[in-house]
């Protein structure tokens, strides 16, 4: 599989960077021929993953969130990586409505949104080391 384009963005885990992160990925993906809905889906999925890195991964300490995006034909691959606390039980974390922070009024729907808006979502995580969310979406609007 030939990578047609690739970018890597490193951000501080500050909540003000959430909107920046999703705009950057949307701008990168807009080199593909997507519908407005598809682009909004990608933005939303990225927003979920970056927010999770900030509030669950780093728990509001300052760390670095890395976003890698690759274009392979009409597919986009996006990785959102933190070096934060990691996830003990990935299956439980992915359940709709599950949240470890109900006191923050989290809906527990972040993973469900990512899974609904992207074609594939792979979660890799080691407690104490961090989390990698790898998502893929193929655009069929061509």
């Amino acid at each position, binding site marked *: 599989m030939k990578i047609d384009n690739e970018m890597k963005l490193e951000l501080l885990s500050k*909540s*003000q960077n*959430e*909107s920046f992160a*999703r705009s950057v990925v949307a701008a990168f993906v807009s080199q593909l021929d997507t519908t407005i*809905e598809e682009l*909004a*889906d990608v*933005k*939303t999925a990225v*927003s*979920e993953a970056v*927010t999770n890195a*900030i*509030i669950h991964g780093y728990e509001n300490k300052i760390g670095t969130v890395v976003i890698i995006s690759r274009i392979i034909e009409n597919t986009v691959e996006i990785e959102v990586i933190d070096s934060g606390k990691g996830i003990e039980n990935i299956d439980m974390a992915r359940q709709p409505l599950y949240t470890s922070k109900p006191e*923050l*009024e*989290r*809906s527990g*729907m*972040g993973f*469900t*949104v990512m899974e*609904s*808006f992207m074609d594939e979502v792979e979660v890799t995580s080691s407690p104490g080391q961090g989390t990698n969310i790898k998502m893929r979406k193929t655009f069929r609007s061509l």
Partner: protein
Amino acid sequence: MNVVFESINNKLVIRINGDIDHHTCETVRQKIDNEIAKKNSKNLIFDMENVGFMDSSGIGVIIGRYKQVTTKGGATVMINVKPQIKRVYEICGLQRIIKVFDSLEQAVNSLP
């Protein structure tokens, strides 16, 4: 990010201007809770006309307000919901608890 309120027949219309994500949702939450407390509101109408983007952090805020007024016997509805927000709303199952109306008038009339 700002939030503008209006009372119509004792129903609280909440007009949010801006994106609702984790960064902005704390401000949105506080402003709404202050207003609900001040007016002792039971019925809420979220006007989403000027919300360009919302993710599940926003859903958390809306469910939180919904729960708050439901315990007082009130209801929550929404108007002017754009496609991106509609999709997040549906995926998160809000359609089971919060109705969407086409106009403010219909929303007001739907509430007791």
